């Protein structure tokens, strides 16, 4: 008998109305507001064990020996496993299989999993894990990414060298020549600290051993099939014996693209023959997933006196930490989007992804484009200032228009002109001036902490532009799969939409129902839980699911509609006059029959970047968001109150106004976090703030009201003409806020997050 957890993901009934383009309620909304939604941490099975991970306290060490005997003897303990117990292939990874399931003979970052314990109670498992004796020979960690990349004498984190990927981009004329012709040259080095996804629901899941020797996994992930392709070989199982069901996901933002507890829980379940649950606490979560790459970026721009950029040169170093994760693609993004959506005759970008013994980094909302955006937008402001031009005007002069090429030579098509977006942004009303007389603390930097009654407070305004690739790039044949089933239930036509796509909060379940309703004209739509009984949907990342899984649901619905029409004609001797008529007659036409169609949707092909020049049509779709930030800064204490954020974004087609606004708000808030407060602080390879006490996320008091202007320049290649929307606002809000602080303080501010001590004393 298969064991099913007490609280499992279930089918979602969608509201009975609302097609594409309308603000509809989420089908999972009621479950989420009643506490019934089954998140991965809520799963429970009678007799289940609790798994715990022993992690390395050192960022770099050799393991001389591991002694598990005392832990194994601890009452209540059912298994203690090390790398020797990994049943199959001992390494995994998104792009390079360089990460051991459990450390083998050495550890390369603080928090690397070394051993696993399963026991009848989490407390027992923790106590037992503390009794595992690991004899470490501690080594000096390699922590300087630049040195790791360029110093031939630097030790290697992995045998094959410290540079994971170097991607140059060479565009247009010779940079040295262009430099000679520039009237004004500015250069600067920028830094971006490590941002964490900090999803609120820590990593967790349940593994249930199957009678066939396989395993049932209930996990919260972003791409179930990518998990599966990594898990099955490590467990030594064929893919069909690893049955996966998506449990409720408490936020993702890129942090669930890599595996965390999946293989570990499965190993413990297979070894003990019992269900095993693993739940990380917040501290462990900081070590349990990859972060946003910290970056060090050296930029130099030249322009003519009349405000035209003539060259751009950039060196971008992204510290990928101990394992590759998605570093290669992050490098590709940083390189290809390294100077933003501007028309520059000569460009040279060198982007590097590097191995060190720092925390491993990979995907986070914005994926490589965020870091570069902070640098190139800071450069745009700096050059504008050097030329004595208004920052918006300077951007408009140099904005790439549809038909112009990016640094990779890829031509911008079917999108809103940046210059016009900036014009609209600048024309939006400004928030009222601060009332200098009153001092409502809530409106001042520092809030009720009562640090100023107006002293030192200056207002600043800043602008930011960001360009993000939508969907996977660089020649990857990306696709999504959808199964759509039409039947008559209780006399009413009912559609079931089944995909393996991860609903991570973005509202894909709402969108799938809207598409099915629009394409099939049916009121009743049910969303099946995501599992691997249907083909891959690809990842809930790269702002791609509306495009890809939306596209797959659309084509599957079209196939169902075609059969529906054919059946209508067979039964009634004529084609239906309209979709409505076909649906009206469905109960008699369909009877007990079921129409069940599965379709794959692929986007148009892209190209790999040329390894020497970076030239290629590497991106599927591009999207731009522009932000204006208005801030009040206490320039003496360095405290910032963001007064208002305004954004203009081109989304191709508004599929659901309410959830679209939510995406823009959310992306903007995370960009605000990076600008002002969010950073994993690392010293000598060790994380110093793995808690929500010291890793600060914006609260409701930090996130100001927003003005939005949403444009719809349809992309004819995309379903409904839509453009992915979740990531672009994460890019542009950061530089806009920092620009506004610079405007208020007059400081250069070359690093994010901007800390109070970077501003203080600037009055």
């Amino acid at each position, binding site marked *: 008998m298969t064991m099913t957890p007490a609280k499992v993901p279930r089918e979602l009934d969608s509201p009975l109305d609302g097609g594409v383009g309308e603000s509809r309620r989420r089908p999972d909304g009621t479950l989420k507001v009643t506490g019934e939604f089954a998140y991965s941490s809520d799963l429970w099975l009678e007799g289940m064990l609790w798994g715990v991970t022993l992690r390395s306290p050192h960022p770099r060490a050799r393991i001389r020996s591991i002694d598990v005997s005392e832990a194994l003897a601890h009452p209540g303990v059912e298994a203690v496993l090390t790398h020797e117990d990994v049943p199959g292939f001992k390494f995994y990874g998104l792009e390079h299989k360089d990460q051991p399931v459990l450390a083998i003979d050495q550890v390369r970052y603080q928090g690397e999993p070394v051993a696993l314990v399963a026991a009848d109670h989490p407390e027992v498992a923790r106590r037992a894990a503390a009794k595992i004796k690991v004899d470490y020979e501690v080594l000096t960690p390699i922590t300087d990414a630049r040195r790791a990349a360029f110093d031939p004498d630097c030790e290697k984190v992995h045998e094959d060298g410290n540079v994971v990927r170097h991607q140059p981009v060479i565009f247009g004329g010779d940079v040295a020549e262009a430099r000679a012709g520039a009237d004004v040259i500015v250069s600067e080095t920028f830094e971006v600290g490590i941002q964490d996804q900090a999803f609120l629901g820590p990593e967790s899941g349940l593994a249930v051993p199957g009678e066939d020797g396989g395993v049932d996994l209930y996990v919260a992930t972003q791409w179930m099939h990518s998990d599966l392709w990594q898990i099955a070989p490590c467990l030594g199982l064929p893919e069909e014996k690893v049955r996966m069901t998506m449990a409720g996901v408490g936020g993702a933002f890129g942090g669930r693209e890599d595996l965390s507890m999946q293989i570990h829980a499965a190993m413990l379940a297979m070894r003990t023959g019992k269900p095993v649950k693993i739940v990380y606490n917040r501290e462990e979560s900081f070590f349990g997933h990859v972060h946003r790459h910290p970056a060090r970026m050296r930029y130099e721009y030249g322009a003519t006196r009349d405000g035209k950029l003539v060259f751009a040169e950039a060196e971008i170093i992204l510290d990928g930490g101990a394992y590759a994760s998605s570093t290669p693609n992050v490098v590709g993004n940083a390189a290809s989007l390294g100077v933003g959506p501007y028309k520059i005759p000569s460009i040279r970008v060198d982007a590097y992804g590097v191995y060190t013994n720092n925390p491993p980094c990979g995907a986070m909302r914005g994926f490589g484009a965020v870091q570069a955006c902070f640098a190139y937008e800071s450069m745009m402001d700096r050059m504008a200032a050097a030329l004595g031009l208004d920052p918006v005007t300077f951007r408009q002069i140099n904005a790439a228009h549809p038909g112009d090429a990016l640094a990779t030579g890829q031509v911008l098509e079917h999108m809103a002109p940046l210059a016009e977006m900036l014009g609209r942004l600048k024309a939006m009303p400004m928030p009222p001036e601060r009332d200098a007389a009153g001092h409502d603390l809530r409106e001042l930097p520092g809030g009720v*902490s009562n640090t100023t009654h107006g002293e030192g407070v200056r207002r600043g305004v800043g602008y930011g532009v960001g360009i993000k690739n939508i969907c996977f790039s660089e020649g990857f044949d990306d696709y999504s799969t959808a199964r759509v089933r039409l039947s008559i239930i209780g006399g009413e036509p009912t559609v079931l939409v089944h995909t393996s796509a991860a609903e991570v909060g973005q509202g894909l379940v709402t969108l799938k129902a809207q598409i099915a309703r629009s394409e099939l004209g049916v009121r009743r739509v049910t969303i099946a839980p995501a599992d691997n009984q249907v083909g891959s949907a690809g990842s809930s990342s790269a702002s791609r699911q509306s495009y890809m899984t939306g596209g797959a649901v659309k084509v599957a619905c079209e196939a169902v509609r075609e059969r529906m029409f054919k059946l209508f004609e067979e039964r009634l001797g004529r084609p239906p006059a309209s979709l409505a008529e076909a649906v009206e007659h469905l109960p008699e036409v369909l009877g007990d029959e079921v129409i069940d169609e599965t379709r794959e949707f692929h986007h148009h092909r892209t190209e790999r970047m040329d390894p020497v020049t970076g030239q290629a049509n590497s991106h599927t779709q591009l999207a731009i968001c522009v932000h204006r930030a208005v801030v009040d800064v206490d320039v003496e204490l360095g405290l910032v109150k963001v007064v208002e954020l305004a954004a203009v974004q081109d989304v191709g087609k508004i599929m659901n106004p309410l959830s679209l606004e939510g995406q823009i708000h959310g992306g903007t808030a995370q960009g605000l976090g990076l600008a002002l*407060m969010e950073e994993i602080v690392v010293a000598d390879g060790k994380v110093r703030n793995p808690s929500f006490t*010291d890793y*600060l996320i914006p609260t409701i008091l930090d996130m100001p009201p927003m003005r939005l202007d949403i444009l719809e320049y349809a992309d004819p290649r995309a379903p409904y003409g839509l453009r992915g929307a979740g990531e672009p606002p994460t890019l542009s809000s950061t530089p806009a806020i920092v620009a506004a602080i610079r405007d208020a303080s007059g400081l250069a501010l070359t690093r994010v997050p901007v800390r*109070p*001590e970077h501003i203080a004393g600037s009055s």
Partner: protein
Amino acid sequence: MEFLRPTSWGEALAAKADAPGAVPIAGGTDVMVELNFDKHRPEALLDLNRVGELATWSEEEDGRLRVGAAVPYARIIGELGGRLPGLAMAARTVGSPQIRNRGTVGGNLGAASPAGDSHPPLLAADAEIEVESAARGTRMIPAGEFYTGVKRSALAPDELIRAFHVRPAEGPQQFSKIGTRNAMVIAVCSFGLALHPSDQRIGTGIGSAAPTPRRAFEAEEYAAGELDWAGRSPLDERVARRFGELAARAAAPIDDVRGTAEYRLHALSVMARRTLTWAWKDYLNGGATACA
């Protein structure tokens, strides 16, 4: 872990005498963090929630307020905001509304963290801490002598904190705290200030900028001497600035993940200068500060 539930103060003292390792708990907002992360495994917890008197406050014959150790911050703000404005201002920056519903000054004192928000206003207002043991009875510890080291206090292992005593504000009070976000933040550093017009004196308290919360004596003396109490003339900007410098000089901060030592010193000097300016302005306007 034993869980002790005295129903009276006497029982609580007896229990503490019996098990000096027992950790007192009221709101739990501090102790539970340690328990949840397994940082501390006390042999016993001493639940003070049934000792009703600890959650009450009263006016004493000496004119002071006696505030039970387990009165939560939310009530200090709501019930005592007018009379203890400095403490109330600090209280409203503690954690979140949820934490203010449960957390107590007694807990802040027991933990004796240099970052505790109640310490600077208690120091500035010359509060005294009433502690008691079954063996030796009651003793009053001035706030300035209570904090002895990082997370260490003058409390003996068999003693419990019963209350703090403090005069209702007779002059303006201020509290100012640096945090890198607008809510739910532990102090990077903080400063409390109280004017004591009848003694022509000011009190100060520095938070999160030394191993213990501490007063800035030199600054206090300097300002007391420079301020024109009787003539009520406006504050000289140079005096305010000097006061700020002296306040910062009293601190001994370190670099940590929340901020640099240099920034803390700078911020303290600014907060001290500003709070003195506001308080003096209020004094000239003839009033004490309401907790606004």
